[in-house]
């Protein structure tokens, strides 16, 4: 899941400062699940913005709407009914959603209300942690199901650096040493032997370094 968190109010207020009417759009997918931009957060932000401006005597009109998914054009199309007369759209979706709205409505400014953070898993209620960097060439099969690219601070592919202590990464005692986890897992799975095979330098083209990526399923994309 893509995780995100609300931007500081000051930044959001800076964006909508010149507007009289805005359309505040949430998304019922990832940002709902990570409690950053679902219906509830839309309501909260709407209320907060109105109050923030009311204080200085300005009436900001906010239309609230939460789409099923902001990264699909069909859902974004629903905005057609609402968008007239608003000065800008404030999106609480991830960057995909913001861009989808920007693509569809060329003449409307679109502002992000959240910072899109990472692809992660929820460790428990209210805690999300990075798990995947979308490098496009998965090595999890070799590393016991724990990703050294997303979870090692140095993206080391051949084992822990000399800085790990007690299973924790040198950058912070709150961060698990990914290689420590990998090693424990490999031991549990009886994969110790395979550790000593040197993992060669990677081809990062599958990652973002090969330019923006695209997946095309010929069978589906008529």
């Amino acid at each position, binding site marked *: 899941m893509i995780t995100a968190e609300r931007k500081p109010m000051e930044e959001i207020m800076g964006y909508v400062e010149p507007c009289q009417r805005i359309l505040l759009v949430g998304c019922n997918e990832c940002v709902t699940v990570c*409690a950053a931009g679902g219906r509830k957060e839309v309501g909260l932000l709407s209320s907060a913005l109105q109050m923030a401006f009311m204080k200085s005597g300005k009436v900001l009109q906010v239309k609230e709407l939460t789409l099923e998914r902001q990264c699909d054009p069909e859902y974004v199309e629903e905005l057609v009914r609402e968008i007239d007369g608003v000065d800008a759209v404030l999106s609480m979706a991830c960057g995909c959603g913001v861009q989808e709205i920007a693509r569809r409505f060329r003449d409307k400014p679109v502002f992000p209300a959240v910072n899109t953070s990472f692809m992660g898993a929820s460790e428990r209620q209210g805690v999300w942690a990075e798990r995947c960097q979308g490098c496009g060439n998965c090595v999890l099969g070799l590393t016991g199901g724990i990703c050294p690219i997303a979870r090692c601070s140095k993206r080391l592919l051949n084992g822990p650096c000399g800085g790990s202590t007690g299973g924790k990464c040198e950058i912070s005692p709150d961060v698990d040493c990914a290689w420590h986890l990998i090693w424990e897992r490999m031991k549990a799975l009886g994969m110790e032997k395979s550790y000593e095979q040197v993992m060669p330098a990677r081809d990062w083209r599958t990652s973002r370094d090969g330019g923006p990526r695209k997946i095309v399923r010929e069978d589906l994309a008529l």
Partner: protein
Amino acid sequence: MGNRISSSLSNRVLVVGGGMGGIKTALDLAEAGRDVVLVDKAYSIGGFMTQLDRTFPTNNCDLCTISPFLSESGRNLHIELLTMTQVTEVKGEAGNFTVSLHTRPSFIDVSRCTACGACLKAFPECVRFTPGLDHRAPTCMRYPQATPNAYSIDIKKCSDIEALVKVCPAGAIIPDDVDRNRSLAVGAIVLSTGAELFNPDVLTDFGSGMYSNVITGYDYERILSASGPTGGILVRPSDGKAPKTIAWIQCVGSRGARPPYVSYCSSVCCMYAIKEAVVTKERFGDGIEATLFYMDMRTSGKDYELYYQRAKDEYGIHFVRSRPHTVEEIPETGDLSITYATTQSSSLEREVFDMVVLSTGFRVSPDVVALAGELGIELNRHNYAKTSSFDPVATSRPGIYVCGLFEAPKDIPETMVQASAAAHRASTNLTVSPKKEKDSEAFPPEKDVRGLDPRIGIFVCDCGNNIGGVIDVDEVVKYARGLPGVVSSERIGYGCGRDALSRIVSEIKAHDLNRVVIGGCSPRSHETLFQDTVRRAGLNKYLLEIANIRDQDTWVHADRPGDALDKAKDLIRMAACSVALTHPLKGHTVPVNKSVLVVGGGVTGMNAALGLADQGLKVFLVEKSNALGGVSTQLRRTLEGEDVRAYMETLIQETLHHDNIQVMTNAMIVDHSGMSGLFKTGLQVGPRWQYRQIEHGVAILATGAVPNRPKQYLLDEHEAVMTQLDLEGVIEDAPERVRGWRRVVMIQCVGSRTKENPNCSRICCQAAVKNALRILELNPEALITVLYRDMRTYGFQEDAFREARSRGVIFERYDVDDTPDVRGQGDEVTVLFKELILQRELELTADCLVLSTGLIADDEVTEELSMIFRLPRTTDGYFLEDHVKLRPVDLPVPGFFVAGTAHSPKTIRESVAQAHAVVARAMTVLAKDTMDLGAAVARVDADRCAACLICVRACPFGVPFINAEGYSEIDPAKCHGCGVCAAECPAKAIQLMEYEDDQIMAKLYGLLERVK
């Protein structure tokens, strides 16, 4: 408890007496599915409590607390109510009595009378008297909520019967009504005949009946009562002036040596006098001087001591320890002069008061004595029903039980306890009556309100003076009329009264209302009543909002009536905004597990367990120590001389061998889940902590209290110092030691009524008297001195106190600020104290010093259980009951009950009564096959749900799950209705029924509408 009945021919129970006790017995029986016939010789039920203004220690208005009971008893289909009826004869035996009843004519067809009052207006003379001070032509209803809700005619006083018949629009007057006799088969009989108050007119010294400003406490209640003769205004009878100085004189007719005095203590007068004084100060301002003349202040009930201290310290009521000599009227003014002596001065004092209130106690009425004779039950020397400590509500005749004042003088909570206890004892071995189809009979079909615009009806109570005395109710009514969606707005007096309720029903029908707002007291107490009312009018019961304009407005803002009025409008507006958004809901039900968890294997726990087991229920009796018995195993005899040890042995054996009881010793409760009807509790059992979980429908806490053992007066340091409990053992096991004693000193209130433990331990005074008498039996030469603060030998215990004094036991009072000093001296101890009459230091050397240390809550245990079961406690560590007076053994968590010393310190007799009472209370839950969980459950809107799992993780009970369709599902039968999921749902896909977001917002918007 020997009188168990093997078979029964009739399963019906006859309850004689429609006071609070009788009503409670009848309701408990009826709720548990038993048929009851409730008879009262008066023309409406309610007894004393309906006549009182407010009751201690919460100063609640009595009518408000009693009225749900009254109306429920009138509505319950298991209860047949017969007024103006008396029992004339009882034949047969337990399980198969034949009772003859005689009903006097009321000349009114109760089923047709609408209580319109037309007859009263036209013929005020042909009515009966109203008790108390009423010197007007009385209304014929004794109080506004009278049950049955009908008038009664005294046909003999009527001059023109024909005209009277015509004046009634309902045609309810039957001039040729006659006496009727009826014979009835019943299985058991409960006597709740109450007592009368002593009439002080026969005394010459206090001027009652001679001086008009000398009145009884009961008269004073009527003056304070909003429905009383003065409409709740404090005036004195002689000249209608507001009195400025009022004196109360205690023990009038009680605690005396010669008739017309009785020797026993009436138990309730100290508290009611304090209450009257406090209410007077509260209602009529600080300008009034209140003085109480008393002998011993007997505030030994739960938290009563605190009430007494507050009266003294906060309300500034004067307490004078003295029995006044005479009261004389000053003829010119009508004022009264009291002559009295105090310990502080040798001469007589004289003080003048505007008004004198005599605290008179209870007497059994001659009618009741006659009835007892007819029934063949034994009475004690004071004409109260004779019972045993070990079965306190059973009379000498099997199958006939007693509760309330006829058993002994007592206050309301104790009466309620005995009433429930009697309900249990009477129903043991009676079969359950066939089910009645309540819904189909009582309720019309629900009207479909979907899609209709709100038509809101607003009903505002004045609750006597409680609301009406602070704000202008009519203005609220007028204001409400202008609110959106409101089509009718009315003032309804006591909203919980019968007439008001039926008016609500007819208004709903008349105006085609589809939403209702009641402005009145807290929904916590009356919501169910009003829900039933709207349901009777054909509306779903959830189309109702209650605005709490009493408990949370007029009661707390009485000092600012203007603001209180504004707030009442706010609260009504909020409710009206919210009610417009309500929609019909359906309650959920689950099956009830018919087993019971009883925690604590002392005398209370065992009695409760046996009672329940005898009713055919499976009982798990859990005891944390390795054996049954508890503190009572250390007791040897009761004050009355009964053998506690033998009783305990029988009780333990019966408990261990009862087929329906599973005893678990060395058992510790560790976890708990579920809700009333389906609890699950985890225990570690046995010396090696085996873990097991048991499922049960209700839980009874009988965890007891612990004997206090404060490190004071050389206790546990000097051989000669012991507690009363220790002394019991010495008397029984080492009588030779007792025979050797020359002098014994006892100190009362050790570790009680102190700063650290402000409450009274209740049991110590009688224990001291009991042990003093037993010492004298063994060693008549022993010199015994009891150092006390107030001797609290309430009820018949007073006889023993009197006997102790007559046999030479010396009672010396000491002051709390000047406690005795104890020093060891070889085998003996020296006790130094200040003798108060002559104000001199005395020194006594004793072979034995006995400390009355009483009981304290088992803090660690009650704390732990309160955490596991989520129950509240009092500040001194006892479990806090749901309602001090009306639900004294019910805990606030539904399905939980408390009994015995886990509730507060008490004697075995009182503990057993509570044990029997909880059985009846538990039966009201367990008699049902299903449990109504209400409608407050979370509901998921599948279209909105993002299946984010937040509800799954947030739910404290693990109820939501993501179903096969991929959205969250919440089983209404498991949902506890807290709403956490609804608040956390990021997609706003969950709503908690009854508390939906738009309803809450509507309330907010309603509140903030005027903010602009």
